[in-house]
């Protein structure tokens, strides 16, 4: 497959953003970009995509030397992991974005989409943070993300992050959310969400804050543009207003999730 180098670099936020990425992150980004390009080509040719079944995906488990649910900082799907840049002494959210969540293009796109039509700052913040916990853990990332950020952000933002994971499985035409074919691809075309997700969905349908996670999913769906140019700058004020940055730095503040930040800061700790 021919690689459009310029388009690929632009998709990551430009040469400056690429410069901050280690080789592992660049390789992962390239893999995702190529997958997306192939999907687009297939779609443009009108070729109906054949999605895998749950059984076919399960059959792939023992072909890998990692588990799909492991966080990005722990896994290199192409070889050895690389040494991570050290975190500053008192790390802030922006430091984690730069040194552990980068390129973070998807969450920045999602938050940008929430910002443009003037959604609430609680929603914009939730969109900005909704997938960041995937650096730590992909499986159940909504719950992990909510737990990671809960001590520092508004309750509605936490609610949006926790439950967007559930609502991603359920289309809502009223709110403008389609079930994505990405989920046919990664969960299987015959996938049925487990009982705890079904139960959570039923709870959410009757919850007064239903629209918080729903709007996160709506912006999530439209934030996979490989050519989008985004940065964290437009969100500095919102972070300043709503993210309670501890003066000791994230991980050093003895909050209920401080250990999670420390794990992100130093995922090479043997114990």
């Amino acid at each position: 497959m021919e690689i459009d180098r310029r388009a690929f670099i632009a998709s990551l936020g430009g040469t400056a953003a690429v410069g901050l990425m280690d080789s592992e992150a660049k390789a992962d980004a390239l893999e995702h970009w190529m997958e997306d390009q192939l999907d687009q080509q297939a779609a443009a040719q009108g070729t109906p995509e054949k999605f895998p079944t749950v059984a076919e995906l399960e059959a792939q488990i023992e072909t890998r030397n990692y588990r799909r649910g492991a966080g990005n900082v722990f896994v290199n799907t192409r070889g050895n992991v690389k040494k991570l840049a050290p975190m500053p002494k008192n790390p802030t959210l922006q430091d984690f974005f730069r040194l552990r969540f980068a390129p973070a293009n998807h969450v920045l796109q999602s938050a940008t989409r929430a910002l443009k039509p003037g959604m609430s700052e609680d929603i914009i913040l939730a969109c900005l943070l909704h997938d960041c916990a995937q650096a730590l853990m992909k499986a159940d990332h909504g719950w992990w993300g909510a737990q990671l950020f809960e001590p520092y952000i508004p309750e509605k933002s936490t609610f949006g992050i926790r439950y967007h994971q559930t609502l991603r499985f359920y289309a809502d035409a009223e709110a403008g959310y389609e079930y994505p074919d990405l989920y046919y691809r990664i969960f299987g075309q015959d996938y049925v969400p487990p009982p705890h997700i079904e139960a959570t969905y039923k709870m959410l349908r009757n919850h007064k804050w239903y629209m918080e996670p729903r709007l996160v999913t709506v912006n999530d769906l439209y934030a996979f543009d490989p050519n989008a140019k985004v940065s964290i700058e437009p969100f500095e004020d919102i972070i300043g207003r709503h993210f309670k940055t501890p003066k000791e730095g994230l991980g050093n503040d003895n909050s209920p999730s401080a250990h999670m930040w420390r794990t992100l800061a130093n995922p090479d700790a043997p114990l």
Partner: protein
Amino acid sequence: MRKGFLTVSFVACLAAIAAGQASKPTHYKGLEVTPLSIERTQNVPLLDCPPGSNTQRGNARAGEEFAVVTLAFKVTPAFKETVIKRPVLTDVNGKSYNTSVAIIDPGSLPEYKCSFPFRVPAGTKVVSVAIDTATLDLAALSK
């Protein structure tokens, strides 16, 4: 013979007028909006309006299809930056359908085309699409 010819001509004229009306622009908050086409499909790209290159796609379920309405937008000097509601499709029975595509940053380009997929029961006949108070007639384009 002549009467038959006149009747055919009259019907042809009516069809032409109807087609002309369907592609007649409607003005809304400084945007000139013209309906271009309606297509039916099972799988659609999910692109905001104006469209970028989002890679996500939506799939219709059994018994459903997407009625994809393509609209042309022209930003006139009267346009001021504002939030534009998502279009709503109405069928021949008056039932309305939402789209997942949102109009984001409508003033970012002078002219653009956007395709809005509406998930409808297969074979649904549609009559119009509305953006807030502006209604665009689709009858002549409807298949």
